[in-house]
């Protein structure tokens, strides 16, 4: 995946860890935005709100 199937060496190692880290941060930001938009409605629905 991403041309990193045969990664080896310090540079490739850093690249792999970097890809994982970037994905983690993007997902954190993305799900955070989703939470802000949908969170209150879901909490209301789960909480049996109005």
């Amino acid at each position, binding site marked *: 995946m991403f041309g990193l199937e045969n990664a080896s060496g310090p540079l490739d190692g850093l690249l792999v860890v970097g890809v*994982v880290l970037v994905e983690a941060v993007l997902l954190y930001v993305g799900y955070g935005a989703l939470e802000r938009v949908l969170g209150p409605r879901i909490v209301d629905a789960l909480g049996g709100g109005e």
Partner: protein
Amino acid sequence: MELLGVSVLLLGLFAGFGTLIGLLFGFFGMGGSFLVTPALMVMGYDTDVAVASGLAFVFATSVIATLKHRDLGQVDYKLGVLMIAGTTAGIEVGKLGLHAMQDAGVADLVVSVIYVGLLGGIGAFITYRATSGDGGGGVDHDAATTDGGQDTPDVPAVAETIQSYDVPPMVSLRGGVQVSLWMILAVAFATGLLSGLLGVGGGFIRMPALFYLVGVPVPVAVGTDLFEIVFSGGIGSFLYAMDGAVNLTIVVPLLFGSALGARLGAASTSLVDEDEIKVYFGVMLLLGAVAVAVRKVGGLVGMPVLDAVALGIIVVAATLVAGAVVVSSVRALRGSKGGSPAPTAD
């Protein structure tokens, strides 16, 4: 149907599994490699790929869970840095002990017995404290509503004793806790020693140690433990990635699920009355001990099928505990919407 060379079914399975693990990881600060690595090995991946990919996954999930706990004011960076220093030294000494045992030809037996004993012992202890109803222990998230625990939470007796040792310099921690620097380093060293000896990440040792020995509130223990895992997981991932052992087709879909699960798990720490959850957490550790014992017996008697049995036990236990966390969270939400306060504090 395939996406990026991987079947959509497998990607969906990884994402679902990731959600389950992320939820437990965000809530308890443990459970990542405990679940992922054996699962990947049972699925037929080589051991180095399973370990490396599990480690990379744990690293990324800990980043997400730590960010969420930071938002909730539940990460003590000072304590985290001290723990990293002490743990690193402990791991090095633990590794020396492991090598000595390997030279003596008793490493596998001793490590297995200590691992099973620790998992089972901690699980039994937490379950006992939770069911005895003395309110003095277990995975208690009562301080979750106190901005990282500014109120005085229940402090376990051992932690009170450790906090009473007035050996300068004293360190102020979140939750209004004051502990000698040397006590923190000693606890960190001891947990690192066990990690190095057992060859495990040690979240299941460190998180209870931060609560029962140092005396910080459980949400802070979880958040700070996760902060430490960011570094240990990152370094471990890098070392394995240099050998090309990290498989991104495993890590990327797992992360899609765990990123969501970790947010939910971390947020649940400020919602759930975990008097209900303590028992499940203890039972999960106890079943984990049984699963590890079953796997070790399988290895000893040459029955690979016991690996799958062990994984089945762990997955069922994890699913039950994650389900309990979700149900308790929803119940807490319903309680707060109904006019009564969410049961987050005694």
